[in-house]
């Protein structure tokens, strides 16, 4: 089936070549990082995680959001999603791969990665995260590939696929819950030390992931002519809007608890991110941009007249993805480190090397997604003829 990815038009190959070029740039930047150490990034003693861990957190959410099509299609027989469900699973595969690569890029000693397996430590959330992520990757790749293979032959999928898909549903929730637990169990990091973090992660994941899925389906329609259907997109739009609304609601509850209780430790990070702390306001414009674009895009998605226009839909979905990328990636991870345990405010700016590595990993994920979707569209188109 994979040979179908080797046949494409000119623009397909230009796109592949472009991605490979960016991967090359990323690899050379990573080579520099391996040689000189993580000092080539903007991270330091006080802000010890940065762009990489932010991407990781965001992408685990995108991966988990596949459940937004898998669950209604397989458990509630919503036939509209028949053409979207495999796209969702393929997106989960590439997002999971990217998130794992971001962890690898962030490690000081990636050569010792297998130590996590050699000395399994159930008391550490990283151990569980690695387990659920690798399980989720395999589960989604195997089940979606088997489904597509069966479809190509016009046969029934093997009997083991269904149970695997059913297992992937609670697994998707666990993937993002465990990711939230990485942060939510740390004493002294008050932005993260909140029970609402896992629910908020799920809400923002379902909003951003679903919006991204709508965008991917529109790109497919534009580039290949393969349409997943207006009904599927309409349903996804509503799902994304309400998930986004839930995310804003959870953020609101965080604000209430922090500012009404007036406990300094709970207030300070939010204050730093949204209003500035002691004259330091590095992220204030970015956070307000995220909040306003988030609210505005949800508004657009909730109005039927606007969301039915492709232009508005693309704009709103892009704004929602960007808003959550800032809120969950940049704001949450960096804000968690400010103020430092010694009440210091340290600024963080990613370096060019760090940005190149990040773009390289994104390109690896997008390349994988492109190849998988190429096979998918080829199979679907052949069947339709």
């Amino acid at each position, binding site marked *: 089936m994979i040979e179908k990815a080797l046949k494409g038009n000119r623009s397909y190959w230009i796109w592949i070549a472009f991605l490979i070029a960016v991967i090359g740039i990323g690899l050379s930047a990573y080579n520099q990082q391996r040689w*000189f*150490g*993580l*000092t080539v990034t903007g*991270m*330091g*003693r*006080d802000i*010890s*995680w940065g762009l990489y861990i932010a991407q990781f957190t965001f992408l685990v959410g995108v991966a988990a959001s596949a459940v937004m099509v898998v669950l209604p299609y397989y458990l509630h027989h919503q036939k509209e999603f028949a053409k979207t469900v495999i796209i969702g699973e393929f997106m989960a595969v590439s997002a999971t791969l990217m998130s794992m690569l971001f*962890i690898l890029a*962030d*490690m*000081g*000693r*990636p050569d*010792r*990665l297998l*130590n*996590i397996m*050699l*000395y399994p*430590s159930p*008391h*550490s*959330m*990283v*151990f569980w995260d*690695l387990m659920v992520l690798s399980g989720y990757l395999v589960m989604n790749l195997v089940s979606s590939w088997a489904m597509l293979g069966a479809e190509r032959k016009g046969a029934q999928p093997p009997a083991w696929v269904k149970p695997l898909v059913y297992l992937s549903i609670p697994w998707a929730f666990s993937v993002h819950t465990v990711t939230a637990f*990485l*942060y939510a169990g*740390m*004493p*002294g*990091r008050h932005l993260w030390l909140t029970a609402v973090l896992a629910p908020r992660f799920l809400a923002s994941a379902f909003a951003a992931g679903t919006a991204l899925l709508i965008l991917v389906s529109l790109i497919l329609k534009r580039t290949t002519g393969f349409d997943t259907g207006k009904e599927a997109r309409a349903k996804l739009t509503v799902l994304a809007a309400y998930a986004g609304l839930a995310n804003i609601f959870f953020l609101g509850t965080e604000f209430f608890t922090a500012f009404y209780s007036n406990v300094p*430790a709970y207030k300070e990070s939010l204050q730093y991110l949204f209003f500035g702390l002691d004259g330091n306001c590095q992220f204030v414009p970015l956070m307000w941009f995220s909040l306003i674009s988030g609210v505005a895009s949800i508004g657009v998605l909730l109005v039927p007249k606007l969301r039915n226009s492709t232009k508005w839909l693309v704009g709103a979905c892009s704004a929602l993805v960007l808003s959550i990328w800032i809120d969950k990636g940049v704001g949450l991870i960096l804000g*968690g*480190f400010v103020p*430092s*345990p*010694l*009440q*210091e405010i*340290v600024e963080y700016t990613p370096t060019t090397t760090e940005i190149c590595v990040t773009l390289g990993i994104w390109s690896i994920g997008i390349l994988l997604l492109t190849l998988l979707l190429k096979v998918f569209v080829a199979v679907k188109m052949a069947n339709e003829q």
Partner: protein
Amino acid sequence: MMNEQRREFIKKTALGVFAGFGVASGLVPAFSLEKTVLPAWDEKPVPGKIRWGMLIDMRKCKEDCQQCAAVCHHVHNVPDFRNKKDEVKWMWKNPYQNVFPTASQQFVSKEIKDRSCLALCNHCAESPCTKACPTEATFKRWDGIVAMDYHRCIGCRFCMAACPYGSRSFNWQDPRMAIHDPVTTYPTREQGVVEKCNFCSDRLVKGQRPACTEACPEQALTFGDLNDPASDIRQLLETNATMQRKPELGTKPSVFYII
């Protein structure tokens, strides 16, 4: 010809026999050629029996003296990059309100407000860093010391995020270039691993006190077993008002302060 072969055979046999002795000697500890020194004060490792702790008397600590930190960093080959971003430190001084941000800050005397306090790893009894570590590269020893295995650390920096005291440093680059006066009694670290105060476990094993307590010209640092009611540190804790850093987090620090 024959003789030469015989000589060679005898030579090799003798070598083999000696090698055999060498191996056998390792099997019987009493006859071993090389002895491992048991932990300090001839205590045998009984988990939880000893809990090393430190009491810092800030009243005695002189404002412009950093002798303890200087000696600590020297004997442990702690690099000095001379920039804040890559900084590696085991022991340092910070203003009172930074070291005790959750302690009372209102209407404190000028003397306390202006004072710099010593900060180091608290060797918490309930350590969040060892819990977060996915490889047990940082772990709790039988004597309460939170130790590091630099050869197992994968550099994920979860322990740094988990530590509520900012006591851990990461080697953002090769530390060996920044060790200006290296010692041979303690190993250097590699790029990409985390390090921190080890409560001088390297000196305790030789029966010595931690380097900082010896270095302090004012005797402001008292080191001892918190589980021993007769120890100096326990006597001081029982007769003075003392503080721990952020006790509300439940980490049970083993470093105490007299302010």
